[in-house]
């Protein structure tokens, strides 16, 4: 800080360097200590980070009820939206009869979007994004369509796999699952 004040000069103990001109024993050990210290620090940080990371779940931890049986095909009239609180998704039956399972989390910041039946759209209460019945964005700031979960229909029962969230930029026909004909 103060330039007038002379800095105390450190007392150096000179150690003879080997005549070969290589590294002295002292500097070699100093280097070794430094390197070991850094390695120990890196290990500590690594242990702390692994301890704190959310962790790789083993198969046993997967919730057994990840696949939600929503109900029989006929119980969902075309053009309607049914909320499933437990799986956090909406089961949508489009006018064409196909099924779509939409995540109820707004793609903007994760608020739950309620279905407003009167206006036929999902309206986010947090930043006023809105989505149509297929999950497409009709008003920003949401950057992409609502996520979907895979829908399967077995023995006339609609099932939704809530463990596999699929991100998409917009609605495409191939995302819709139709009940088998006949």
């Amino acid at each position, binding site marked *: 800080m103060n330039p007038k004040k002379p800095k105390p000069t450190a007392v150096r103990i000179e150690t003879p360097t080997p005549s070969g001109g290589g590294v002295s024993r002292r500097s070699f050990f100093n280097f070794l200590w430094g390197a070991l210290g850094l390695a120990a620090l890196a290990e500590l940080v690594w242990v702390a980070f692994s301890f704190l990371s959310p962790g790789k779940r083993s198969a046993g931890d997967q919730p057994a009820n990840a696949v939600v049986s929503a109900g029989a095909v006929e119980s969902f009239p075309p053009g309607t939206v049914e909320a499933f609180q437990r799986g956090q998704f909406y089961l949508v039956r489009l006018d064409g009869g196909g099924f779509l399972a939409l995540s109820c989390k707004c793609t903007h910041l994760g608020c739950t979007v309620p279905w407003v039946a009167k206006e036929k759209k999902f*309206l986010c209460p947090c930043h006023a994004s809105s989505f149509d019945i297929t999950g497409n964005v009709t008003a920003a700031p949401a950057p992409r369509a609502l996520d979907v979960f895979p829908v399967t229909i077995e023995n006339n029962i609609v099932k939704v796999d809530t463990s596999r969230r699929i991100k998409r930029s917009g609605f495409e026909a191939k995302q819709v699952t139709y009940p088998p004909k006949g």
Partner: protein
Amino acid sequence: MVKIIRNFASFFNLSSRREDPGSPHRIFKTLVFHIRPRMVAERTLRFTLTFGLGGTAVVLVTLQLFTGILLKFAYEPFPVQAYDSLTRLQAGLAFGQFIRNIHFWSANFLVGVLFLHGLRVFFTGAFRPPRRVNWIVGLSLFVLVLAANLTGYLLPWDQLAYWATTICLGMLEYIPGIGQRLQQWVMGGPQLGPATLRNFFALHTAVLPVVIVALMTYHFWKTRKAGGLVVPHSPLEVPEEKPAMVPSHPNLLLREAAVALSAIAFVLTVALLFDAPLGLPANPGLSPNPTKAPWYFAGVQEMLVHFHPTFALLIVLAFALAAFSLLPYLGGSAGSTGVWFISAIGRRTAVAGAVASGLITPLAVILDEAVVDFAGWMPGWPPEISNGLIPAALFIGLLAGVTIAIKKAFRAPRPETVQALVVFLVVMFVMLTIICAIFRGESMALRWPGI
């Protein structure tokens, strides 16, 4: 008896060096003067140099530690129990509601006081060398206090806490590259749940207090190293080689005590009159309408209404933090220190910046709400461009325009121009905060408050 006092005195290294070593008064003074300076520059004592803001912040942090430790004895960090433990605390424990009120209000005041303290340091030039590093330490402390506030906000586990935290953590996802992993890491899983509460509780009650207190100590030590507070001298004056010094006791200590007691009295009064809010228990299936971030993040939330999240975050976090950290290195050297707003030109440009921002910000918000719709005008373009790049470019263009206009109109030197730009940004941020916190109602639509 005397022997006991003498032994006690040896705790503070007083031994028998001076006369009357065992006097409690001396013990106190020696301890105090190990922390506070013995002498202070007379001109730094003027109240309008600092408004006692740094000291008030220390008092509030102390209140936080004291009430926080008490609350920790009553709180249970598990999703459903958390809310129950709060209702039990408020209804059943003696002074439970009062202690929580103090903790709540003093946390909120701390954000405001630190914000003003930062402005004070900036506008009196106390961020210039030799106080550059301490400016960055102070900024870090502000960020840490915001983190402490945010982590504390979740703990009551009511609707307010759950959804405000959801949207705050939702912002993390948009940090380019590491966003999603960072979000998962902070949340402790794919969504807000018991793991998030556990993480936030640990951060709030162990990690952050320790780091904040440690960094505060460093902050004060650096202030002492810089020779105490910045000694005011005007542009024409040659800085004194040795400013007139007066003993800290009673000159400084009595002033500090007055500020501390006033701050405590104020917090206690507010805590007696107004209860800390506690909404309905958290319901992950239902976002209240509207869902707002805590008020100190409302400015950021307002930006999210207007910009694509990646750009809102880049502008707010990266740009603002980088710019404010670099201020001592970019601001140029001013002719004065310790003088509010540098000089006469500085005062005029600061007012110009404030007025310009006060007019432009609400106008821009209303315009964007009513007229501008880049996404609609540019169908087929990705939202990163229509809602991100284009408004961001306009924003940076606006800043450049304001800078040039002020430089030209006032023939302002560099420090005064930089200062006016900072005033512009600060007023803008304050306006955005007010707009989001007060002027937005259901579905985040603009409305007049109270209607």
